[in-house]
């Protein structure tokens, strides 16, 4: 994955982190900057728009708004903390490059805003971390190994799909998270239905809750002590959703949830107290090597 090796990116925070998960955003910015990746903010970025709910209202409007985000500032690559944003912007970029009619429609709209279509590369931050050489760099900066910690890696759906637009890792059996947690010393335990969706994007509550419960039970059965992921929607599902599920059913999974970047910050020496872990609904205090 040598294509995500530049050291300067525009940072695309996405809506859920912006509005509800500032501690996640903090950890992603910090671990990238600690690895020498420079990030530039652009307050003009809007919602990508999201590939689930907004796109359900109008694919045309989704494409035009995505085209605006892509076209704000030339070809400087964009890095996101959300797989949904990376997938949505990448898919829109592919449509704009392949579908002449859609491109002309978007170009006409953007012209009114004084913008010309741009198609910069868009990467999720895991892809930046997985680029050639960065894994070694991370290993050299780890001062607090998470040896012995058993984690369940959850990839979610949009990190690698649609693969024709995203082009990162294996679309159905990705490995990047497993590799990164191994560098930190933690053990990624195998578990049933590891690559299954968390359920969050389904707009049907029962479908969503059924998937969440199934995954939590599988992670617990495999001996996981924590969940590691890199999607703000999956984070909400496993953290807030797990709390609500436990309240409703009386089940006791109590599996703390970490964004990969949080573990990275901790392993690279960040003060745990400054990472906002107290904002997690499932308490992280008892996790070996972290509390």
């Amino acid at each position, binding site marked *: 994955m040598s294509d995500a090796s530049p050291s300067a990116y525009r940072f695309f925070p996405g809506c859920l982190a912006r*509005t509800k998960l500032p501690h996640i955003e903090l950890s992603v910015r910090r671990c990238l900057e600690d690895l020498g990746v420079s990030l530039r903010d652009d307050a003009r970025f809007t919602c990508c728009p999201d590939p689930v709910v*907004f796109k359900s209202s109008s694919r045309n409007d989704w494409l035009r708004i995505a085209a605006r985000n892509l076209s704000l500032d030339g070809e400087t690559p964009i890095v996101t903390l959300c797989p949904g944003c990376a997938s949505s912007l990448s898919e829109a970029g592919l449509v704009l490059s392949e579908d002449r009619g859609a491109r002309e429609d978007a170009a006409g709209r953007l012209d009114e805003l004084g913008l010309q279509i741009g198609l910069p590369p868009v990467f999720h931050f895991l892809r930046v971390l997985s680029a050639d050489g960065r894994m070694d760099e991370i290993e050299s900066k780890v001062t607090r190994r998470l040896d012995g910690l058993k984690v369940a890696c959850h990839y979610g759906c949009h990190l690698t799909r649609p693969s024709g637009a995203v082009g990162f890792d294996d679309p159905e059996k990705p490995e990047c998270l497993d590799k990164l947690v191994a560098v930190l010393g933690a053990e990624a335990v195998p578990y049933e239905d590891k690559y299954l969706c968390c359920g969050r994007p389904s*707009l*049907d509550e029962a479908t969503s809750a*059924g998937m969440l419960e199934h995954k939590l039970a599988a992670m617990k059965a495999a001996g996981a002590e924590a969940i590691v992921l890199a999607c703000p929607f999956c984070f909400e599902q496993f953290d807030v959703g797990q709390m609500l599920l436990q309240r409703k059913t009386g089940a006791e999974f109590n599996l703390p949830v970490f964004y990969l970047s949080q573990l990275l910050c901790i392993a690279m020496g960040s003060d745990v107290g400054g990472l906002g872990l107290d904002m997690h609904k499932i308490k992280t205090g008892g996790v070996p090597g972290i509390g």
Partner: protein
Amino acid sequence: MYTVGSSTSEDIDSIGGRELARLCYSCGICVGGCPAARFSDDFNPRRIVLEICLGIGRRLVGGGSPIWKCTTCYTCHERCPAGVKPLDVVMALRNISFREGACPESVSVIRKNVLDDGVAGTVTRRAAEIRQKMGLPPAESDGRGELEALTGHE
């Protein structure tokens, strides 16, 4: 030309990849990999594509339709051996439902948030304070106000 029921819908045709739906030979691989099919009783992407091809898909439009159970995981998109894009068909049906004013409330709410503020969620005072304390830039988008002009007039 595909239809969703008694009336022919240009929407289904206007969305990329729809012409490929007729290539579906009902192998069912999309159902086998579909989490929403596995965890619900009535979401079935193979059947949805078939109903659209046959022009009997009117039942699939509306707020109570099974289409809203889809998790947009793209597994069907990845695995389909015929290049059909079942998720695009589901999205087309959702777009038609929205246009007819028959969709879950969350779709209208999030769309309005995005068009009004540029951001899908609401920035609470607490979140703003925490962001400031953490040294993060404000959550608001300067792009608000530019998006309405981009929408509509298909």
